[in-house]
């Protein structure tokens, strides 16, 4: 199992579009993906789960991955957070 804390850098938060990108990318990996935020745990491959976090700019969350491709998955997902889900100019 690998885990890492990340911060939402998108100014308008982890809204529908980045949430959709996150779920899409995460679903491409075999590993189980859990997001922990304020004591909540959601399935990171669940669009509704991710959206109901309603994570705003600056929110901190922990990404937890477990499975055969966990390292690669974590790296890829952390990169999405770093690059603001490639949505801003």
């Amino acid at each position: 199992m690998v885990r890492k804390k990340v911060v939402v850098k998108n100014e308008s938060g982890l809204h529908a579009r980045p949430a959709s990108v996150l779920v899409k990318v995460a679903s491409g990996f075999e590993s189980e993906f859990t997001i922990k935020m304020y004591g909540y745990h959601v399935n990171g491959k669940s669009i509704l789960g991710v959206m109901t976090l309603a994570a705003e700019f600056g929110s901190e969350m922990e990404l937890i991955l477990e499975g055969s491709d966990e390292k690669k998955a974590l790296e890829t997902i952390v990169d999405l957070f770093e690059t603001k889900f490639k949505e801003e100019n």
Partner: protein
Amino acid sequence: MNPGSNSIDLTGKAVSNGIGIGSATILSTKSTTVRPDKIDQEEIKSHLQKLKDSRNLLLSEYEQLRDESHLQSAKDILEAQIQTLKDPEVKKRVQHKIESDRLSVGYAIFSTLNEYIQLLETSGVKWASDRAVDIVAIRDEWIDVVSENRREITMSKGDVIFAEDIPPALMVKISRIKVAAIVMEKGGDTSHAVILSQSLGIPCVINTHWNRYQVKKGMLVIVDGLDGHVIINPDDQQLAQYEERRERDLSRVKESLKWAKKENLTKCGKSFFLRANVEFLEELPKLTTHGAKGIGLLRTETVLFETTEFDVKEQVEFYSNVLKETKNESVTIRLFDAGGDKLINDKSSEANPFLGWRGVRMLLDEPQLLKKQLEALYRVSGDFTGRLKILVPMVSRLEEIRALKLVAEEVRDELKRQKIKFDPSIPIGIMVEVPSVVMMANKIASQVDFFSIGTNDLTQYTLAVDRGNEKISALFDSYHPAIWRMIKMTKDAADEHNIPISVCGEMASKPEAAACLMGMGINDLSMNTSAIPNVKAVLCSHTLKELNELSDRVLEEDELEGIHKLFSKWKFKE
């Protein structure tokens, strides 16, 4: 075929001309209700199967729709719906409710999605609560599928669509199918469904209480978009009569389309510009065939409704598609004009929405929206220098123009800092649709780059007639002498300050009114694309002198009746 006594003749308000004959398809907007019914042990299996089948059916439909869509924004909306259907947690929870709680599949879906809807609605984060409606939409559609009570959204070419009202996204879908006609119970002159049916030339009748008369799928229907008649189960004689009229209409349209190719000159050689009012990309191919010179009014409400948080990139894509498809012509883009029936995610209702928080008033209160739209427009302008114009809606005082210009300057400064190429001199003009602006036209003309008169709202605000109110709809008449005088005042003010003036209201689409406007010296008119050939025919076949005489006499009239009399000879005849 059918005896005459079986036919039902309904009347409504004709809003889009033409004769449509086809078989009825009913678009129901009432959703299925589900109850927390318990199921037996042996039913579990079939309910799980139903869950799987319904999910697969919706997935394949949405995926097809997504792949066929031209708009990135529409694709994104569908993609989000697809992800919801594929959501592993949703699947797990629904299955659990069926297997362990022994709930019916319909109720299991209902209660599972409601949990998420409630979380989103109470999240306190605007974008999250805004998305709740999408989950509601998918919940209802999914339940309809499992209860085998699907709201009709399958329709074929040549059908007559009956609906209570048609939401914009569905209207886009309908626009891709060549339907014969549309009959709506609700709707207003300016609803999206009406605007789109006009520009696509689909006959449309609204305010028709068809529900009361058991219209059934497959019944033969005639829709007369000129007189507002809807005939269900017509007899042979009626059918023959309308078929003949339809043929005549078609050949007339063909005839008038010949004018589309002519040069935009009056009989005496004076030039004019007829442009199109446009809202959807789907309308653009028609501009060439109908002889439109660019776009005089690009509405941006639907595109902004469809974006996520008014995303700049999505807007840029839409605007640049429009600009690419209109070659070298100018495109006047009206800033987001929410109001009245187009209100944006505002649940508090206003007593008088048309006198309320809309147009520039709302934009100045919502700088995020305004800045994003201006940013998108300036970004696009870099590749299309000199072709864009920005039109500000619902201005009622000078201060609003100053405030808006300051925001535009901020946006430009920011783009400059980011070294982004843009057109620094996009003209910024205003809609003249509030009487206070007409009274101040002389002052305001020195502060703006152009005027565009919106005759529908100007009429409503000047005559104090709510155009949606059926009781007084007869009082709503844009030919009122006061309106002509206001147009004249506005034109004089524009001339004095040497700024261009155009008319983009419904008035411009009527040949007789267009002739009068041209006579008054307003030679830039924007209208529904379908109306262009007939307007062009009238302007091309008269001299400016004749048009001047008409407008002079109209401006002398004190009563509506006199004006209608003057116009009677000018109206388009068969």
